[in-house]
């Protein structure tokens, strides 16, 4: 047992006959940035879903920050310090941009039902404070989200949607941030902006641990840290990008067997 922030052991999940994750072992240290790559359907998003408690693993264990979180409900895992974004941005579309981030602060607010009913000024103040923090986050995250903070989230452009999701994820002051294909559907310019955003976020919170699932090799190449490669639910490589590139198995996974 190491002091790793996230420790995944023998993680397996089966959907009927399909084995989506097959005895996966991964360790992530505090402050690392890890990229997860692999062909489509290799199990990358499933990994996130299991770590955040959306799916229950069939076998295996997950330890996070000293606790065994296997089988914990999502909201407890999030409260413990994990935050994520989604491949297809799941924003709260009929709420304002600002409200999306305020909701991200849910685990950092405490008003109970009784308190909301009997101590309304305290509850409103808490919400106003949350709105302040959220506004600050919107300013930091770049783009012009701050200017659009009172627009409905569904009206945002693609790059802004990603940024909003990241802002929402950061609102809960997570220890571990999971980014699920953040550059999906983005062009080069937006991808560069996103890389800059991630760098900025990391520099402001050096202890923040980030795992990124990605297809865009440009992004993966610029990130420091390790690359974990999945294929058919199995981890087939776990090393810095330069090494992984040369790895025969990885090449085969992406391109099919090389002709001798």
């Amino acid at each position, binding site marked *: 047992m190491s002091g790793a922030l996230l420790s995944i052991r023998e993680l397996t999940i089966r959907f009927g006959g399909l084995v989506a994750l097959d005895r996966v072992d991964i360790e992530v240290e505090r402050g690392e940035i890890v990229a997860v790559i692999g062909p489509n359907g290799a199990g990358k998003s499933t990994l996130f879903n299991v770590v*955040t*408690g*959306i799916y229950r693993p069939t076998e295996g264990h997950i330890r996070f920050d000293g606790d065994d979180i296997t089988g914990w*409900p*999502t*909201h407890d895992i*999030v*409260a413990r310090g994990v*935050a*994520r974004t*989604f491949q297809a941005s*799941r*924003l*709260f*579309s*009929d*709420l*304002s941009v*600002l*409200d999306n981030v*305020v*909701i*991200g602060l*849910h*685990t950092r*607010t405490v*008003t109970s*039902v009784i308190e*909301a*009913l009997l101590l*309304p000024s305290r*509850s*409103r103040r*808490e*919400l*106003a404070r*949350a*709105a*302040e923090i959220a*506004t600050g986050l919107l300013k930091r995250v770049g783009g012009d989200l701050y200017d659009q903070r*009172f627009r*409905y989230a569904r009206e945002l452009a693609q790059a802004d949607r990603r940024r909003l999701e990241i802002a*929402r994820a950061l*609102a*809960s002051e997570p220890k571990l941030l999971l980014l699920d294909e953040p550059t999906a559907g983005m062009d080069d310019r937006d991808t560069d902006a996103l890389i800059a955003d991630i760098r900025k976020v990391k520099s402001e919170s050096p202890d923040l641990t980030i795992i990124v699932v990605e297809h865009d090799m440009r992004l993966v190449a610029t990130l420091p840290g390790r690359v974990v490669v999945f294929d058919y639910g199995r981890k087939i490589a776990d090393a810095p990008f330069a090494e992984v590139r040369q790895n025969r198995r990885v090449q085969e996974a992406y391109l099919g067997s090389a002709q001798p």
Partner: protein
Amino acid sequence: MRAQLLVAAVSLGIAAFLWAFMVANDPFLVAILLAALGVVFWALERFPRLETAVIDSFRQARWTASAVWLAIVLLFPFLFGQNAYYSHLLVLSLIYSVLGIALNFQLGSANIPNFATGATYGIGAYCSALLALNWGWSFWLTLPVAAFAATVFGFVLGLPSMRTRDAYLALVTIACGVIIHQLLNNFEWTGGAQGLIGIPAPSLFGYSFAQPLRIFGFTLPFQVHFYYLSLALLALAVVVANRLHHSRIGLAWNALRADEVAARSVGINVVWYKVLAFAVDAFLAAFAGVVYAFYISYISPDNFTFLVSVTLMTMVIVGGMDNIVGVIVGAFLLTLLPEKLRAYSDYRLLFYGVVVIAFLMIRPQGLLPQRLRNYEIR
């Protein structure tokens, strides 16, 4: 100064319109009033600045608004003098407004289809009626007990909501509603199909609500007592709804309405919040049921059917989802309009059905749609 004037003008205008709508008996006149209302809503839609201006002025001139509205609601029954019929309509509209606000927690805020509000309404009514008839409990004592019983039922109803969603959840609520209705119908001690009669009117320190109200030299029908009682209940409901809406709880409900998976992923305990919505709905619905029982003094299972729940849904959908003023407008409109069309009472249900479908197709957010939250950020 401008804000105060606007507030007073709008408030008095609304009061005047309501009075006119209630006393108008000529169908032609009713049609004109409805057309006028239609024009107002069209204008609000076409010129959003109008709506913002009105809302801002209410926010600025808060004291004036409170004073004006307090005067209006307290004095309104005096406009109808001895005529009990109009006061009766007001009581019903107020009770339905409370029920609409109760349902709004689930339907409007959290997008949970609940067809069992009629059942919780009924549990509140029956619970209090039975306590009063069998053990002579006073109205005031039965209130908390009935509310508790219904809230427990609300929690129990909320439990299957853990594992079910959308249409399945709707079916669960329909099933519970039908079960309660059938049980009330079958059990002897609930009076069976005949129901319970002779529920005594509430009294406060010996002053009975069943007698006419004599005040300031006026004599008003006894219904006015219940008008003030329901008004107090509506005030309570509005306060509860407001406080919950403007807290992290209201936000959590809205989040789970928008995207349940995303809501879980920001740490919202979706199960708890869904169950909470059921419980709060049941709590307020029970209060409404108790007031209803003691007002009409007889209740039967047919007052609390599936169709009642559908009527309530209509009010919330038409009035405005997740908009408290909208819900009240919807409740008043859909209680008063059928009365105006009494000649066509046979078409009432058809009317409801068509209106719901029309609104869902054309204007699903209702007459007064939900508004973005406003934070006072220093």
